[in-house]
């Protein structure tokens, strides 16, 4: 990795925004925002439901259509919370592990790898249980991550941010094309095409949510616990090794956490891109680059953004809905372009 291409994290280390006090204030603000979006996500939808009915539905009543509609929104909100948190955190981990400002589970092809693995499992091996989905997605995510990293680090200079992003984006395009090739001709599974092309949280049920929970929780735990190791890695491999860190192990463990999070999320929601790119960058502006703060912030921020995107998708196209994967791409892609423009680019 060349030093010149990564000017963001090192300079801001010293200028980390504010003290622990301001960070705590930001944290409180983020929690309040999250609560607000949760309330919005339960109350706002295609169907207008009176406040009393919403309260009754949250209490478990499902006797009118309005209440039943709200009851459907609850698992959806939970899924958005989990998926958003997982993707935000995974993005922060990937940016830390690869020391690459362009890293994101969507851009690096990890989500599409999970998607492709599930599609292959369903189309060719008749896979149908949700546990099989999840395992396959996680294996696919892991394989894609290793594959992209291997391609990106070929040649001189190792895994520079741009080579890695290019390898990831191209792999993602290739995988997406293979997904279409496998799914489209199969009438029996083609109904779900959209969900393997564009991620969404609509149609969430507790039955789909529960199996993935242990994987996501394990992913959250591993990822959040690797904050200190990521801080060492940010100093560069030599310095980290000098501080007594086993660099390879630290990378592998943190990546495992991110892969569990991405694979689990993609198994339930389909590929959702760009969230993991935007959230850590914004959080870094708020709290600086200390991963002990950045990781929890990215988790909360990811959950906030995904909920907001989901609510937005329900509002703007009433009475239809826009899948949250479309909304995140429309928000996130300009952000991606902005970061690409800021980078000092060396031609390949």
């Amino acid at each position, binding site marked *: 990795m060349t030093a010149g291409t990564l000017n963001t994290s090192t300079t801001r280390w010293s200028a980390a925004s504010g003290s622990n006090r301001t960070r705590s204030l930001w944290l409180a603000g983020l929690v309040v925002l999250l609560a607000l979006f949760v309330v919005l996500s339960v109350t706002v939808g295609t169907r207008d439901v009176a406040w009393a009915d919403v309260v009754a539905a949250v209490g478990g009543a499902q006797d009118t259509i309005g209440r039943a509609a709200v009851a459907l929104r609850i698992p959806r909100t939970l899924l958005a919370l989990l998926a958003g948190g997982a993707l935000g955190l995974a993005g922060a981990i990937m940016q830390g592990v690869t020391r690459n400002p*362009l890293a994101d589970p969507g851009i690096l092809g990890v989500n599409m790898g999970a998607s492709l693995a599930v599609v292959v499992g369903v189309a060719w091996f008749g896979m149908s249980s949700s546990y099989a989905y999840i395992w396959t997605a996680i294996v696919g995510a892991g394989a894609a991550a290793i594959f992209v990293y291997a*391609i*990106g680090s*070929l*040649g*001189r200079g190792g895994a520079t941010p*741009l*080579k890695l*992003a*290019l*390898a990831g*984006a*191209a*792999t993602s*395009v*290739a*995988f997406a*094309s*293979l997904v*279409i*090739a496998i799914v*489209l*001709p199969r009438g029996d599974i*083609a109904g779900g095409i*959209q969900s393997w*092309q*564009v991620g969404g949280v609509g149609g969430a049920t507790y039955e789909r949510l529960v199996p993935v929970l242990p994987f996501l929780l394990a992913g959250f735990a591993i990822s959040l616990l690797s904050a200190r190791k990521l801080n060492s890695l940010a100093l560069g491999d030599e310095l980290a090794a000098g501080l007594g860190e086993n660099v390879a192990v630290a990378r592998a463990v943190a990546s495992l956490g991110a892969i569990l999070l991405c694979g689990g999320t993609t198994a339930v929601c389909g590929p959702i*891109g*760009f969230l993991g790119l935007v959230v850590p960058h914004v959080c870094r502006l708020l709290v600086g680059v200390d991963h002990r703060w950045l990781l929890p912030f990215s988790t909360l921020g990811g959950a906030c953004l995904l909920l907001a995107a989901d609510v937005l998708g329900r509002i703007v*196209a009433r009475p*239809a809905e*826009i*899948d949250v*994967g*479309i909304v995140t*791409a*429309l928000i996130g*892609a*300009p952000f*991606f*372009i902005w970061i*690409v*423009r800021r*980078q000092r*680019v*060396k*031609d*390949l």
Partner: protein
Amino acid sequence: MQSAAIDVVITNRRGRARRYAVVLAVLLALVAAIFAVTLSIGKTITPPAEVLRVLLGEAVPGADFSVGQLRLPRAVLSVLAGLCFGLGGVAFQVMLRNPLASPDIIGITSGAGAAAVFAIVVLSMSGPMVSVFAIVAGLGVAMLVYGLSFHNGVAGTRLILVGIGVSAMLQSVIAYILQSAPAWSLQEAMRWLTGSVNGAQLDQALPLLLALLVFGGLLVSRSRDLDALRLGDDMAAALGTRVAQTRMLVIIAAVGLIASATAATGPIAFVAFLSGPIAGRIVKNDGSLLIPSALTGAVLVLAADYIGQHLLPGRYPVGVVTGALGAPYLIYLIIRVNRIGGTL
């Protein structure tokens, strides 16, 4: 002594010209052969004599419909779209000196596709108007990508990454429009996701042919300048090429080709991306890549459509076949580019 050296140069040049002519002839023969096979061998086999009689406008019972109405429009549209994609793709790749800078990766195809879908679904346009709309949108996207990647000069890598970002947004737009048009059949949706020549009509071919003649002619007439651009901007300028003007013309012509083809058949996956490098392998340094690449595009679309229709267990639209072929090649190319840092 000197004359011997000149003789060597002359023989070399003649050899190159001969090889180039052979390549062109072989590619042309290949296009013609697959075209003929497409016309005569489908679910039923029509003897060549009957195919010829249909083509000459005679009424042949039985063959009239299957050849004249089904196979001919399909084959004609495949050839034209293939030529357009191959030519437009290689123009971008040569101009930007990077095989990854093909229109289907940097978002121009998605832009034209999104515009076409929007024109058809939301504005309920049809016919040539859709093509015009797609061309304008494609040009807009090309300018946007080019402008956004301009930062102390355009670096190829930055342009590709910006293009990928823009492409992701446009894909989302296509997905959204398709999603919100529930009455659409899967077949139609498929056309705009991967490209297909199903349900081709002969009158679709006319605007495409026109675009090919105008924009293709423009490109081929500037092929010397385009080849000079391969050597780098400074070298090209030293050789007497007006770099900025050539680049602008090439962008307009290539976008026109890609967008017209996309409006007719949808974004047939990876044809624009694959044709140039394949042609490059065949032609080596013997001459301009433009025409070989266009012919390669036609071969790819014709062959992939035939494979998708008749040689596989199910019936697949052409874009699915080219997508499955192109994806591994894209990955291979990334590996190669990263390893040796080379270009086309």
